[in-house]
């Protein structure tokens, strides 16, 4: 189903509950009655075209957001990506950590299993924090800078100097390491971790990890198909203009 402005938001959630975190990420609170997307976006001062592109991209993996999102200001996209970083770091990862801390085993294995899993997860979490911080402090500001300079058409000497030193191309990075670690964690829990006393917690952890994985894939899809290509295009034109 393609979600449009007149679609009721409640219907969207009924149809695909994976969109719940996306909706809260935009700052929308539940209890919205029968309001459609257009009405809710107006109420929360959200650009409804942008909102639709994001929910459709997440809802249908064949939906290509690049075309329309590419024509919208990148600052919307960046703002969205920032809020999903916040969601990963402040909500999802602490939740999984809490669940991991709950696990326990019989006998002397308990201490070893806990310490091992804890260490792995902490390491992964730190990598995510490092990665998102790099994007927030380096990549996104540079992209916004490019967009602002392109729009203002000012020949800002400071920025011309910056452009001599870096380019979007330097930021075309891979997220492979992060997704490999998550995949490893899934296999460790599914295949190799000895049965814990609280198997209900194991179930919750797995569901949360699969969820996080899907969410991160979608996040990367927006970066790789919208943010970076559009910013590269603008950068190219800007370089031509500034010459």
């Amino acid at each position, binding site marked *: 189903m393609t979600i449009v402005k007149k679609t009721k938001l409640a219907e969207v959630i009924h149809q695909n509950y994976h969109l719940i975190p996306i909706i809260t990420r935009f700052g929308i609170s539940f209890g919205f009655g029968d309001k459609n997307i257009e009405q809710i976006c107006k109420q929360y001062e959200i650009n409804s075209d942008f909102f639709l592109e994001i929910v459709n991209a997440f809802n249908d993996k064949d939906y290509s957001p690049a075309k329309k999102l590419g024509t919208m200001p990148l600052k919307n996209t960046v703002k969205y990506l920032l809020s999903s970083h916040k969601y990963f770091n402040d909500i999802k990862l602490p939740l999984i950590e809490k669940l991991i801390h709950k696990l326990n085993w019989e006998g002397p294995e308990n201490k*070893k*299993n806990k*310490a*091992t*899993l804890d260490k*792995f997860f902490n*390491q*992964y979490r730190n990598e995510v924090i490092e990665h998102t911080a790099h994007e927030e402090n380096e990549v996104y500001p540079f992209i916004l800078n490019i967009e602002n300079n392109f729009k203002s058409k000012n020949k800002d000497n400071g920025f011309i100097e910056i452009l001599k030193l870096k380019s979007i191309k330097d930021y075309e990075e891979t997220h492979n*390491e992060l997704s*490999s*670690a998550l*995949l*490893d*964690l899934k*296999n*460790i829990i599914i*295949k*190799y*971790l*000895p049965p814990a006393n609280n198997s209900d917690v194991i179930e919750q952890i797995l569901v949360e990890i699969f969820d996080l994985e899907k969410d991160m894939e979608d996040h990367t899809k927006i970066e790789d198909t919208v943010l970076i290509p559009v910013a590269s295009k603008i950068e190219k034109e800007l370089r031509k203009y500034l010459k």
Partner: protein
Amino acid sequence: MKKLSFIIAEKSYIVKTGLTKIINNFHEASVLRETTDLQTTIKLVNKHNPEFLIINIKLINDAHEDIRQLFSKKINTKLIIFVGTKRENEYFEYFDEKISIDDDKAEISKKIQLLINKKRPPNENSESGELSEREKEVLRQVAMGKTNKEIAEALFISMHTVITHRKNITGKLEIKTVAGLTVYAILNNIIDIDEAV
């Protein structure tokens, strides 16, 4: 283990989606890309050298007989033709397999399974997850944070052998990162938690 990749060249969304769905049911296979025209298909096949290409007969116009010549010489992709009507069956001999719009799910699945088996015989991928003693030794070294060079020196084997062992370990366990391998090694008492990095 790396999945066998398919490229599907097909205009019809319904057919494309159906084929993708059946292929994705095989855990050792996945659809790499979907295309809708011949030009892009040639480019993608030359770039990725996928194990399989499923192409609609309508996309290849008059090139059935020399379809292989459309691709770079290095390409060893198996070619599967998709036919949408009964009349189009005559070009079958130039392809490795034929899938027809009239095939039912079981028929298509069987054809794909046979193609997969040819590329990857079943006994090869049904290996047990058990590590050999040598692999355990290598894993132990990995978990200690050693580099390939250090491992080669410690175990008196070549770098090349170390790399092969590591590949096999990752393939068997389906764990890629050093941190993940370390967790496996600790859980299975291959290394003591205090020795690990």
